[in-house]
């Protein structure tokens, strides 16, 4: 901005030098130009501090700009102005207008152009092609700059949010590492020694083991959302991990639309609840996540006694919904399929297949 003001000032000075013979009061022109120089310096310093880019300064800025424009009527003869001669400050008026556009956006920029246009009109007495041309150009510039500032401001705000998020994630990772290096190790150790000692210590060990699994899932460093705005299925399933439930998944994110990931997670939760309800305590379960090119396959297997043939259909027929409704229903909504395989004595396997629809 400051650079523009000084460049425009040079232009105004050249104009004054060229036309001073035809002007009615060239000495006043020099005074006005000196004032413009002074004000250019003041604004260059004042606008450098973001805290001062407020209405008092902006108001004074536009006022002085209009004043310099008005001063033209005492310096330049009316006839010349009427015939489209350049005003005294010429392009310099744009400085104040653009400052308004930058600080206040499109609307205030346009308002400033309007004020300048009105003063210009009163100077010249009638609308000439030059005035109109100048005003339209100024209007365009103010409008564009106002718009660009708005876009830039939004981009900066978004950047700020992203940076904050990143900082939060990093802090979380730092905490996770800390917990990982100390608490988890000790809990795992207590679990191990406790189990070896037996009796009451074994019970303590078991509790420590459960806490360890919970804490590990909690501080897991898998981010919830991936960069493309979809969700990582792994982050939905990792909370299911416990002393009896093992999650196996790829090392890289499994991106899915968030709603799909949540539905799959709910279906897995229902299948795991089913394991708890229908198998003896201590039955272990495994969840395998596979990311195939066009399908997501999630398998929940347990090593319980299995389901006798016909039991599922029987349960559904008797109005007990359980696995049929909550798992099959959810998968049907996602356009997927459920396959349940069970062998008495060898556990049950629930395989969920969901077609990958790119978000």
């Amino acid at each position, binding site marked *: 901005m400051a650079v523009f003001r000084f460049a425009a000032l040079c232009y105004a000075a050249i104009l004054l030098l060229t036309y001073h013979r035809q002007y009615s009061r060239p000495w006043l022109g020099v005074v006005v130009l000196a004032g413009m120089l002074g004000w250019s310096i003041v604004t260059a310093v004042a606008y450098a501090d973001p805290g001062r880019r407020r209405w008092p300064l902006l108001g004074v800025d536009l006022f002085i700009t209009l004043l310099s424009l008005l001063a033209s009527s005492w310096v330049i003869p009316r006839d010349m102005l009427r015939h489209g001669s350049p005003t005294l400050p010429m392009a310099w008026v744009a400085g104040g207008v653009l400052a308004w556009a930058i600080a206040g956006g499109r609307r205030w920029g346009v308002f400033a152009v309007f004020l300048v246009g009105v003063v210009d009109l009163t100077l010249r007495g009638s609308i000439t092609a030059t005035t109109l041309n100048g005003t339209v150009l100024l209007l365009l510039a103010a409008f564009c700059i106002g718009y660009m500032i708005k876009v830039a401001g939004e981009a900066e705000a978004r950047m700020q949010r992203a940076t904050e998020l990143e900082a939060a994630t990093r802090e979380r990772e730092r905490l996770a590492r800390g917990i*990982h*290096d100390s608490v*988890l*190790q*000790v809990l*795992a*150790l207590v*679990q*191990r*020694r406790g*189990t*070896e000692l037996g009796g009451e210590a074994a019970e303590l060990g078991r509790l420590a*083991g459960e806490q*360890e*699994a919970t804490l*590990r*899932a909690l501080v*897991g*460093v898998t981010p919830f959302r991936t960069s493309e705005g979809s969700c990582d299925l792994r982050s939905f399933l*990792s909370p299911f*991990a416990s*002393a009896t439930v*093992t*999650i*196996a*998944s*790829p*090392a*890289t994110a499994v991106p899915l639309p968030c709603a799909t990931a949540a539905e799959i997670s709910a279906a897995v939760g229902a299948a795991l609840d089913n394991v708890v309800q229908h198998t003896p305590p201590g039955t*272990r*379960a*495994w969840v*395998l*996540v*596979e*990311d*195939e*090119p066009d399908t997501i396959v999630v*398998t929940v*297997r347990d*090593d319980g006694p299995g389901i006798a043939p016909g039991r599922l259909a029987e349960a559904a027929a008797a109005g007990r919904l359980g696995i049929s409704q909550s798992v099959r229903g959810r998968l049907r909504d996602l356009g997927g399929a459920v396959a349940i395989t069970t062998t008495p004595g*060898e556990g049950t*396997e629930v395989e969920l297949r969901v077609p990958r629809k790119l978000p």
Partner: protein
Amino acid sequence: MTAPVRVLVVDDHPMWREGVARDLTEAGYEVIAAVGDGTQAVRVGRSLRPDVVVLDLQLPDLSGVEVITALCADQSPWRILVLSASGEQQDVLDAVKAGATGYLIKSAGREEFLEAVRRTADGDAVFTPGLAGLVLGEYRRLATAPASDAPVLTDRETEVLRLVAKGLSYKQIAERLVLSPRTVQNHVQNTLGKLQLHNRVELVRYALERGLDS
């Protein structure tokens, strides 16, 4: 009587280090050293040549992966069992690709741990369901990558890995697929071998591209 298996224990947590060393000694292993950081692990490992390295992935100086890479740089077959308290999956996968032959979560019981060390000493790969899931995922990732020389799994290997990932024991898998447990073990081993070979080729290629061979 055969000489006892010589083990190097690397863990930065003193209580863990002692606990693991005691368990191993009680089970008849010879713990030749128990160290707490990666630099020491590489130095001691190279000079003492243990039969088995039990390695924690979380170390204060070098990462577990760097230790494995440094040890395996001499091209001889190292037997490294990785212990990790975390589910830091990428770390585990990287460790296995760099040359670790087994992985066990730290909360595994004493018996499970000793069994894993025994199998590592025998030269068998020690897979948990979690590791099988990671390896499956890695092969799928490589399959979608543009490189044409990426390793692929045979149908049988995929089948075996999926069953391992679903928590079946080698014995159960062998029964289900009508194979011998040894064959199941070999399939698992192969999946790891191909991945490690690919990793080494990639490292060499990377070095050549960067002109580090000169």
